[in-house]
């Protein structure tokens, strides 16, 4: 009986192709928009996650002061080089430790100058931040020990100072320090915060301390935890180690901060996901509007087919059977709309993902949900017209002109 009813509904839809298409347009657009939003949003989330992973997976930042960012108290005790060494030595499952100090300095080459971030560190810095050398080489041990005047530059600096030409062996001036370019970093682009990661000059930490900062301090220690090891545990261990090294009594607060990149990642993906949810909610409204469109057409259809309903009721169709017929028709219509919407959404999200350069991530869940929702819209908005049809008086309906 149900199969018959579905066939009947299909036949009825086929009879009014144009009207049916217009009816389901709202559903098509609604389903299409929701799926597209969720798919693109999902892609963006994956992209953010990938970018953060590329910043250095399992990265921990150990910074002085109680809190990262502005408002650090002036009596902050800075790190020394041996703090980093201690972390590498005493904390288990650490892959690399990079002591980092940096400041913004105007770099000069010939008659070109460019303000850039000069970072004093060692070869571990590249490992911790997941970067590689495109051309040239890393620092040698003797250069690091001696504090030699050598540097590794990023793509942006190369472009601004040398006009993009290969410039190994060239000398750039950083304040009073003139240093030779020995390597060029693989380009990495902007990070998720919109900062250009290629606007950088790396020099040996010792060179930085002696020639630029003039002290033995280390501003930041970047730590990467071994793949598969728990960053939480490393975070805890580093905290305990630093408290011990700084002779903090149990009642003292930390005067340093160990931050997990995953926390930052969570925050950023959270923002993307919230945005996706908001856009999808807006799109879902059009699904509702589509449902009202279906109700409208079903009501017209009931009026138009009053005689037919009268015949069916007189001949022996139960109220429930007429109700079912119109309900199935509405559901078939809206499900059809849902299917077309899904196809449309997949096509447009592949295209959009390509345009926005985010990965296309197929989300089975939202496709299934959107389809079920479109069917549900048919049930909800088809019910009232169907009820109206079923309640008709056969005598009146047969007489209807």
């Amino acid at each position, binding site marked *: 009986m149900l199969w018959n009813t579905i066939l009947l509904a299909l036949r009825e839809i086929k009879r009014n192709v144009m009207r049916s298409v217009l009816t389901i347009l709202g559903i098509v657009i609604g389903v299409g928009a929701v799926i597209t939003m969720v798919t693109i949003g999902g892609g963006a989330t994956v992209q953010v996650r990938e970018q953060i992973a590329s910043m250095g997976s399992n990265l921990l930042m150990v910074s002085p002061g109680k809190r990262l960012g502005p408002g650090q108290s002036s009596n902050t005790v800075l790190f020394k080089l041996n703090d980093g060494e201690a972390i590498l030595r005493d904390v288990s499952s650490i892959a690399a430790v990079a002591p980092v100090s940096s400041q913004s300095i105007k770099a000069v080459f010939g008659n070109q100058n460019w303000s850039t971030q000069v970072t004093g560190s060692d070869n571990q810095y590249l490992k911790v931040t997941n970067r590689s050398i495109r051309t040239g080489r890393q620092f040698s041990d003797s250069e690091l020990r001696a504090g030699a005047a050598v540097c590794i530059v990023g793509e942006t600096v190369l472009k601004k100072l040398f006009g993009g030409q290969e410039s190994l062996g060239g000398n750039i001036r950083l304040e009073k320090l003139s240093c030779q370019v020995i390597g060029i970093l693989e380009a990495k682009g902007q990070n998720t915060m919109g900062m250009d990661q290629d606007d950088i000059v790396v020099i040996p930490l010792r060179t930085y301390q002696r020639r630029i900062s003039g002290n033995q301090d280390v501003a930041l220690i970047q730590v990467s935890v071994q793949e598969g090891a728990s960053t939480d545990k490393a975070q805890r261990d580093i905290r305990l180690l630093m408290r011990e090294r700084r002779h903090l009594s149990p009642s003292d607060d930390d005067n340093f901060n160990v931050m997990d990149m995953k926390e930052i990642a969570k925050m950023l993906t959270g923002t993307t996901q919230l945005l996706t949810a908001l856009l999808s909610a807006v799109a879902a409204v059009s699904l509702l509007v589509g449902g009202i469109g279906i109700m409208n057409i079903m009501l017209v259809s009931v009026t138009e087919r009053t005689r037919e309903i009268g*015949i069916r009721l*007189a001949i022996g169709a139960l109220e429930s059977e007429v109700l079912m017929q119109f309900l199935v028709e509405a559901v078939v219509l809206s499900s059809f709309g849902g299917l077309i919407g899904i196809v449309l959404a997949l096509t447009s999200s592949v295209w959009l993902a390509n345009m926005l350069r985010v990965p296309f991530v197929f989300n089975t869940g939202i496709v299934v949900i959107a389809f079920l929702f479109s069917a549900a819209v048919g049930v909800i908005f088809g019910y009232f017209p169907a009820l109206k049809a079923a309640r008709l008086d056969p005598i009146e309906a047969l007489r209807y002109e």
Partner: protein
Amino acid sequence: MIAFSQTDNQSLIELQGVTKVYGTGQAAMHALRGIDLNIDEGEFVAVMGPSGSGKSTCMNILGCLDTPTAGAYKFKGIEVGKLTRNQRTRLRRFYLGFVFQGYNLLNRTSALENVELPLIYRGVPAGVRRARALQALKTVGLKGWESHTPGELSGGQEQRVAIARAIVTEPAVLFADEPTGNLDTARSREIMDLLTGLNCDRGITIVMVTHEPDMATYAKRIVRFLDGLVEKDERNGRAT
């Protein structure tokens, strides 16, 4: 289902003091003012009368589409007025056939599908349904016209499809409302011959509303309505 309590001496259809009032109070319209009418199995009854005489109202009640305001209508001993809407629908589905005024076929639907319709509601399997519908169309002389839609058929053919739809279920009673109303004389005679045949050969009880005295002569009995009452009830031309 409905339990029938018909006994041998009971008529198939019994109307006892049936009245039908539309509206209330001052605006009340008395369509039927107390009808007593018995119809036995195998009868061919023509119902005549001017418009507004109550014959259509009476047909609606007989066809279980409507219920009387007062009085009793017993079909096979069952008091129809006491049944629910769905029970009356089932009664129509299994025992009654209708040839509506102005054909009332489903538009843009083939003759075959139109005839299959009542069988669908009876839950007859597709194969059997098709065979029976083809057979019914053959009976009314429309073999070869099965796939035509009402728009592609002449008035007479449409009426025959309507009859085929009414008889495909082999109903106990066939109600026909002016089955020859829109047809020329030759076509009308064809239809009347067909109905007479169904009445004689299949033993289907027929109740037919008509305006044309010529057509009424095909019936074995003529009931005349006037102002909501049975004015005359004649058998074979003789008044009873």
